[in-house]
């Protein structure tokens, strides 16, 4: 889950890091009030779960409370990078050290190449950091071990700060900041904790000017208290279409099998497909053939007849959907007969003729003969392990 900047900063502040003074607001009037309280120039930043806000016009400056109100007025209720703007963070504009020597990018994450936890840092911070990182040789990377009995290795922070070329008090303070970032990254089960930039204030303290925090959904079970402190981020992460919401309801109503990632695509060919790898493969084949998928989906495990029936109805009832293709890789865990029964029942409950509503059924594997018998009874086309995804898709294309 991506944590909104304001909530990430609140966590970091509670964790001993310096962040600019500020407050999240949802009305322009509140923005003016906060700017007045801050008593100086402010930055106004939309709170959406993605990066690239500056370039997209989601970060603005204002010198007066009135200007802050006007800026907030234009941002709130709008859309930036496809995300609705429900709140903005109004923050003091930082007074920086002169000359501006301290602007650092820091990222703590896991490196897929070495398969280790890692810190990346560079003095080339700013909004183009990704391209800088690729081209700039001054980027410092240090991996660190997770096998120190939960202790954060403090020398890593010192090494990175030294490699970046800092000395004296600035070095000592930066080392401490880096150690804290590593500590919180591990403590919160983050998969990314990025500070860009980390700025050296006029008072010689490092300040987190912007923060990207992404938490590991698979570790959510051990962070109930942490998540309770992030209501806006949880809400933003849960923004789904009505179709996705219904699919999730069907999925959670019955623990058998998985109905994962139902995403609407707007076409006329409904897809009940799975598992993960096969769904990707089938989706490519469908699009390559020039067919128009109504949705993406990943079914897996051993879903019940009820779950398949409800999903069938949900997909077939989408506006513009004329027929449903049911396809999976050779299955071992999923029972073919249960899926067959589910799709037929779904079509019948909608008053549809199964052989017209279900354009193809290609799931070879366990209980295949029983499944085939059900489909044969209703005249639904069954494809077996001799028929590749590409052949089945070609047959669907021919029928349209």
């Amino acid at each position, binding site marked *: 889950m991506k944590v909104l900047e304001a909530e990430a900063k609140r966590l970091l502040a509670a964790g001993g890091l310096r962040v600019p003074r500020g407050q999240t607001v949802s009305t322009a009037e509140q923005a003016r009030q906060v700017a007045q309280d801050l008593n100086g120039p402010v930055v106004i930043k939309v709170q959406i779960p993605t990066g690239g806000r500056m370039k997209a016009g989601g970060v603005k400056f204002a010198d007066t409370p009135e200007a802050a109100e006007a800026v907030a007025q234009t941002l709130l209720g709008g859309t930036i990078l496809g995300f609705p703007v429900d709140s903005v963070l109004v923050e003091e504009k930082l007074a920086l050290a002169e000359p501006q020597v301290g602007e650092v990018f820091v990222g703590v994450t*896991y490196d*897929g190449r070495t398969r280790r936890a890692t810190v990346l840092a560079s003095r080339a911070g700013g909004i183009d950091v990704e391209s800088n990182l690729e081209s700039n040789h001054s980027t410092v990377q240090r991996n660190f071990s997770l096998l120190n009995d939960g202790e954060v290795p403090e020398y890593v922070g010192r090494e990175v700060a030294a490699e970046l070329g800092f000395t004296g008090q600035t070095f000592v303070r930066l080392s401490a900041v880096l150690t804290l970032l590593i500590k919180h990254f*591990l403590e919160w*089960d983050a998969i990314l904790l990025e500070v860009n930039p980390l700025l050296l204030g006029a008072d010689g303290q490092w300040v987190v000017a912007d923060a990207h925090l992404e938490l*590991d959904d*698979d570790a959510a079970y051990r962070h109930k208290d942490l998540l309770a402190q992030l209501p806006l981020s949880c809400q933003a992460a849960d923004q789904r279409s009505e179709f996705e919401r219904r699919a999730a309801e069907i999925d959670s109503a019955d623990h058998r099998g998985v109905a994962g990632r139902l995403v609407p695509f707007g076409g006329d060919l409904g897809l009940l497909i799975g598992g*993960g790898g*096969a769904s*990707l493969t089938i989706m*490519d084949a469908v699009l390559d053939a020039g067919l128009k998928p109504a949705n993406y989906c990943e079914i897996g495990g051993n879903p019940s007849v009820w779950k398949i029936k409800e999903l069938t109805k949900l997909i077939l009832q989408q506006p513009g959907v004329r027929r449903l293709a049911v396809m999976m890789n050779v299955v071992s865990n999923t029972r073919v007969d249960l899926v067959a029964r589910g799709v037929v029942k779904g079509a019948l409950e909608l008053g549809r003729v199964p052989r017209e509503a279900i354009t193809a059924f290609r799931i070879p594997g366990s209980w295949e003969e029983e499944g085939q018998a059900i489909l044969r009874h209703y005249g639904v086309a069954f494809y077996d392990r001799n028929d590749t995804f590409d052949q089945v898709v070609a047959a669907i294309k021919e029928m349209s």
Partner: protein
Amino acid sequence: MTILAFAETRILVQGITGREAITFTSESLQYGAKIVAGVTPGKGGQNVHGVPVYDSVAQAVRAHACDATVISVPARFVQDAVAEAVDNGIKLLVIVTERIPRRDAVAIVERAERAGARVVGPNSLGVISPGQTRIGMSGGSADAVRLAYKPGHVGVISRSGGMMTEIANLLTQAGIGQSTCVSIGGDPIIGTTTLDLLPLYEADPDTHGLVLFCEPGGVMEEQLAERLMAQPSRLRIVAFVAGRFADRMQGMRFGHAGTIVEGSKGSPAAKMDLLREAGVRVAEKFSEIPGLVWAESVVPLG
């Protein structure tokens, strides 16, 4: 010969009394796998389809030599189960558990590396050397495995467990048998990558070709391409990269947790180009795979 999994490999199952483990233990035994012991704390003294259950790995390995273990315990216990296996000298660990936190996965990989042990997974369905043995649960029942997988000379490496069986089936239908098939897992951090397996296949005189099932995200294909450009392989390598459609929808997650694409890196299109440059035969369509594998160097099924 094959790699990793052999007819004589003695297998331990950690979490053997779980519902899923009971099923795959029975099916693997029917396939001929030598599952010699199981572990579930608190269930020592019981047996699962004749396989004795112990309370600890130490007890199990004292009574039975074990070459490999299948770890099928809930996500929160996996790290500890890995430490237990590694500390008791087991050198091949296949983790079938899904949804392991990233931090745990990285710690697991680090621990195994230090101990000189190999981890396959997490989120792997297992390793099959057709006609010899299966470590894990890929392919389902013994009959289903026999139907989809046939002994032969082409290795299969797949980020998707389901698609590994689909590929084996596709090859089998085309008369091409397999040496060893490895479901490496779809997570962003996995213990054994394609690059790690390549030298093993290259050292196996009975493997002549390799089929890869790739997905968006990560750097595994990029690493393989780098190695092949620096040092070409004697193997005929065929790759299929799924999820090209996701290129157009950056930041959205489809398929496995590892498939998220950020920026141009890790996109299927970029992976296909790189693999091609490195001399890999890249299938545009899934059904092209057997045709690309087929060559004089590849010995078809009897």
